[in-house]
């Protein structure tokens, strides 16, 4: 009999649907809106970074720029994993270098000594 009384007392507290006894006195509708997920763009999104030659026009006449992507010892064009350029720019640079070779603007087998002191863009470690 005592247990029955206890159950009767505990029942409203233990009931799962509509725990109104444990909530605050504010209306139920506002509470539901606060709990729902708000649709917004990711606020921690970093700005997309492009490659080194983003918005730079690649020209066959600009041999100083083109020389930064070739080996100083052999004059070979560096691959994408070394230059770090995106697909489009790597293709443009490659085409421009080959054009410059054919037209007599740039050397094939070496890098012009005037451009040896240029800053290193490619991730390859240059020996002095």
């Amino acid at each position, binding site marked *: 009999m005592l247990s029955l009384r206890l159950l009767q007392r505990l029942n409203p507290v233990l009931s799962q649907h509509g725990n109104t006894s444990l909530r605050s006195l504010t209306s139920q509708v506002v509470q539901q809106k606060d709990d729902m997920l708000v649709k917004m763009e990711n606020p921690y999104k970093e*700005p*997309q*970074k*492009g*490659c080194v030659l*983003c*918005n730079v*026009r690649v020209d066959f*006449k600009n041999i100083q720029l083109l020389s930064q992507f070739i080996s100083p010892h052999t004059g070979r064009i560096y691959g994408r994993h070394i230059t770090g350029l*995106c697909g*489009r*720019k790597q293709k443009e640079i490659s085409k421009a270098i080959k*054009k410059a070779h*054919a*037209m*007599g*603007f*740039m*050397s*094939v*087998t070496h890098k*012009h000594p005037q451009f040896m002191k240029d800053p290193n863009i490619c991730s390859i470690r240059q020996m002095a």
Partner: protein
Amino acid sequence: MPRYELALILKAMQRPETAATLRRTVETLMERGAVVRHLENLGERVLPYKITKHNERHSRGAYFLVDFYAAPDILPGLLNHLHRDVDVVRPTVLKKDDPVPSSNCCANYGKDLVYI
């Protein structure tokens, strides 16, 4: 008419002779109905490699750039003429394309292709 660019490498000569060669070249262009837009001097430099042309080995050259509008059918004849000219070391005609300004940035490339 489409736009072309003539990258001309001339023999390293004295100023009056270079001027005469350029005059001859531009007159040839105009005779064939081309409209010369701009003539740039890129300076006299050491050639990147020794070029043999007209039985002569050249190590220095004068670089010029001629912008012109022309009909496409004159180009073979023009190149033939330039190759025969003794003072010209290497002539190259290229088509000039207008660069696409807005979509040049590769940071925005493929944004619509990525599934998030």
